[in-house]
């Protein structure tokens, strides 16, 4: 039986069956969904997750951000002084706790935004699918 099975053939059958029922194939549905999203200038691409720029840990602030410097040689000196005075600063104000909280909030918001983008994409595709199906049925009824 193994030789009789061809997953490409099975997928072709499945897709043809769906296209018959829906009145449109996947490419037509995606094209229609893209048209719907064109008014949204920063629309996420359809089915292209994850969002690579924000995902991962590198984009967020961290406790180290407070003490770091990006000014080359002078920056190293500055960082050394900051490291020396760090315990003293922490005695008067716990800035690291604030950064820690902000980091968690950023991460949570990022997750929500990514999920919303994914949902918006899925909804646009779903809406396009339903509209095309309705049009197909209306044509059949005529």
């Amino acid at each position, binding site marked *: 039986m193994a030789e009789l099975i061809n*997953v490409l053939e*099975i*997928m072709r059958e*499945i897709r043809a069956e769906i296209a018959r029922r829906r009145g449109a194939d996947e490419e037509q549905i995606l094209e229609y969904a893209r048209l719907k999203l064109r008014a949204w200038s920063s629309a996420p691409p359809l089915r292209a997750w994850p969002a690579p720029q924000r995902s991962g840990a590198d984009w967020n602030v961290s406790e180290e951000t407070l003490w*770091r410097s990006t000014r080359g040689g002078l920056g190293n000196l500055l960082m050394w002084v900051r490291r020396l005075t760090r315990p003293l600063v922490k005695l008067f104000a716990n800035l690291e706790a604030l950064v820690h909280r902000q980091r968690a909030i950023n991460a949570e918001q990022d997750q929500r935004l990514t999920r919303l983008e994914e949902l918006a994409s*899925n909804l646009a595709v779903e809406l396009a699918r339903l509209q095309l199906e309705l049009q197909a049925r209306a044509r059949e009824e005529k």
Partner: protein
Amino acid sequence: MRLGFVVQRYGLEIGGGAELHCRWVAEHLAKYHRVEVLTTCAYDYITWANHYPPGPTQVGGVPVRRFRTWLQRHPVRFGRLSQRLFEDGGDRGLELRWLRSEGPFAPGLTRYLKRHRSDYDAVILFSYRYYTTYHALHACPERALLVPTAEPDPVVRLGIFREAFHRPRAIAYNSVEERELIQAESGNHEVAGEVVGVGTELPQQTDAQRFRQRYELLDPFLLYVGRIDQNKGCATLFEYFLRYREGSRRPLKLALIGKAVMALPRHPDILPLGFLGEQDKFDALAACELLVMPSPLESLSMVTLEAWALGKPALVNADCPVLKGQSIRSNAGLFYRNYDEFAACCDRLLTQPDLSRTLGQNGRRYFHDHYRWEVIEAKYERLLQAVQSGAA
């Protein structure tokens, strides 16, 4: 042969990814060759902070030499550099700065390799995108066997890497799709290469019944194994599964094995089981109806190969070229692009036991032909011969 391995991190505690891939290959090739792993003292792959002591040690019976990292990754600077490079583009200088910023910055490793290159007949380098790999490749190109573990992301298009893919004597690709990607970006057709991948350790036996009883999973279930993460396509999987459940009267669960890094829907049919040991994982694979793999980005899904090894069909995301390609080549999995296809594939796999069984048998054969350790070891031997004959 005397083999050197270069990898960004190495340790028994490091599970998954190129690091585990490297450890398994090193442990298997150590049966036939004298092996030494050159790596950093880092455990954390984001900061690369030194964790292990530097110098020679042994991990799982394999000699390992660790080198200090001299810079921790600066998240803000690295983020800024990445944005500048990938959005505005940059020259070779900027690409090299980005690579140094990504890390792990362990120049001692490169210096050591330059000085001791003649101690090795071949050096196997894992993950093209790291500082250690790139500079190790430049330190001994005539002995290098590269295992790129590349994914279709913008990094593979950087000029420094397009040029670097021409340097090794041979390349061990994870999949046909990875080879096509790298050859299309770099045009390195002249470099000897083979699709190898990695084997897996299968248990002597599995006990589906024990798993069902232990986790009170008496209904048929789909299984997902891996990090439970939006970036792995899990949010869409939950959406599709719950929608499928609403339209079906047949009892069906979705069991999840792995650490959750996203909020999970509270639903009686979605069962997060947490991180399980290897035996439990294989028992779960033996007990499930099918493995579902919704990730859009995979360079090689080891768990999919494990499901096939146990004769289970897979249902995978068609947007992932590697998973789709493997499903087609093995004739052991179906693939979906949207809910309609997900539902239709589930219907067929759950209601046509002959189809499901045959796909599983095809998977078992595919694993046996391509991913048994004997096969993987033989492929490495061929590539090592190519390196040695080129280096001579």
